[in-house]
């Protein structure tokens, strides 16, 4: 298995312009890739933005420490909320042998997706697959509240369907 910090750099290398915005997005991308069969080896638990990997968070820090990735902090226009922009430092791109090189199209798609839609897609999958919540539809509305409205949950399920992932698609 590749070093975890290298996996972080590879995900960023495959994003448009080798740039990825938001830690939450990076977390959800890695989670969804893992569900699609990309063996990254990160472990997840449920946090307030859905499935979250502490290992991945640590790997991001290591990627910065080993000089593979740089992080710039920017602020959202409406309320100044700070968020991270990750870029490669070397600009060498993902290694051909990388576990994830065959997932370039999906990473490009996720990089442009609405962040709440990604959060909802990862959470719906987590509830159904890991917490085994039978009525995951009711549970996600309970947990995510207003975030599920305005077609965002429907869009998240469309995304899962496109990726052939449960609960939008029955894989049993």
């Amino acid at each position: 298995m590749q070093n975890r910090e290298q996996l972080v750099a590879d995900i960023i290398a495959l994003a448009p312009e080798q740039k990825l915005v938001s830690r939450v997005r990076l977390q959800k991308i890695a989670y969804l890739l893992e569900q699609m069969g990309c063996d990254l080896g990160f472990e997840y638990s449920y946090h307030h933005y859905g499935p979250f990997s502490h290992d991945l968070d640590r790997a991001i820090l290591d990627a910065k420490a080993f000089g593979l990735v740089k992080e710039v902090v920017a602020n959202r226009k409406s309320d100044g909320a700070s968020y991270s922009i990750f870029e490669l430092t070397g600009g060498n791109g993902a290694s051909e042998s990388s576990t994830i090189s065959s997932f370039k199209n999906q990473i490009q798609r996720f990089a442009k997706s609405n962040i709440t839609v990604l959060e909802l897609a990862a959470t719906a999958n987590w509830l159904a697959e890991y917490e085994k919540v039978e009525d995951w539809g009711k549970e996600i509305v309970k947990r995510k509240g207003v975030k599920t409205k305005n077609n965002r949950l429907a869009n998240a399920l469309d995304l899962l369907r496109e990726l052939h992932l449960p609960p939008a698609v029955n894989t049993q």
Partner: protein
Amino acid sequence: MDVNQLAMNFMNNSRQASKRIRDAVHGLIVFDHSKEIEKLAWKLVGTREFQRLRRIRQLGVSELTFPSAVHTRFVHSIGVFHIARKLIEVIQRELASDFQGERAEVALIAALLHDLGHGPFSHVFEAVQQSRGVVKRHEQWTAELIRNPDGEIKPLLEEHRPGFTADVAELLEAENPVDIYHAVVSSSFDADRLEYLQRDRFMTGSGAGAIDFDWLMDNLRVAEVSLEAPDEDDGEDEDLKVPTFCLAMKALPAAEQFLLARNTLHEQVYFHKTTRCAQKMVGKLLRRIAKLATGAEAARETGLPLNHPLLQFYQKGGETLAAYLDLDDSVVLGALSLMAHARDALVQDLAQRIQSRRLYKTMDVGEFGSDPGRQAQKVRDIEQYFVQAIQNESVIKDDEAALNIYSVIGGDEERIHKRLHILDARKPKEISELSPIIKALNDKKMPIRFFFEKQEDRDQARTIRRERHAKP
């Protein structure tokens, strides 16, 4: 008797009937019995579920590092109630005629009961459960205890108002805020945070960082922020905006101090390496007890009688509300003298060590210099050398602490409504955009520590060089 006399008598009677608690941090806390909601609060304090919090320390094993930090979740919860009342006054002032008294009552009682579901040593117990594959956080236990039809809480809540139980439990369970009343229990200025920062600072004896509480409260306002996780989108979706507490610009220096105080407490108290080590040891002990609890020789192996609450809880199917209520810090600490005679060598060793504070030897990777690359490489070297010892937990790696202005164990991005906002031209702005001091603390640090059962292993770890092979 004239009307004035009657009013005076009524006030005197209410005053006499009211209950008072003298508190080291907040002074006199009065439960005003002329108000039904405060009468209810006092009755809730008297329930078995709430009284159990007297036996759960707010800072768990921190007492081994800060001996005066023996305050409990009981006194903290009463302090939270006291501050929640003040926050509700702020909401009333800000919302004026839009203020909803019934929602405020829900928030006030939710604040009082917010910690009911903590287990012994709080987060340590939760982590042990998680390692056993049980995904049930203390917030879920709290909601269950409130809704428990056989408990003492629900009848009191329903007596106050039918449906009140569900309202309180739902407010505590909600992951995202639905209105400003939710901010009393979850926001950058929620009652819990405002209480524990003051009390923990006082009880640990930490002189670092002060909180200008009165000035902050006076400058508290209500404004809307977006719930959406932050990225380059503008965050202008109207339906994702929720009201939360923000501060007027003139409170910016006090807000900076507040965050610096919080940061200092995290760095020096909550993430103190000795405390983290003790937490890991208690966790290791509880995990071992849980493993042995289902065996045929459970009593002999653990040193505990079969009806001990720990063995009862860790039995297959034993994780009931009733069994959970029987667990607290004192049950575990009181069992150490029995566990010290356990047949299982690990239980015996850990119990004796914790009893006598003979903790594992700690090492912070920061001692190898501040360069993150060098630290990360050192971690790799130690992990490689002690691969076997880490597996059997005679060497423990602790990489869970995360330090920045919004430090949280686990390290996930802090939610927007839990971040601190300042009103800039009447629009909320996250403080890091306005304050260079706070911006400098935005960079996340995740200190790594190793805890060694044997001193010689720690000595060895300090001298490992990259080319050496793994320890046989």
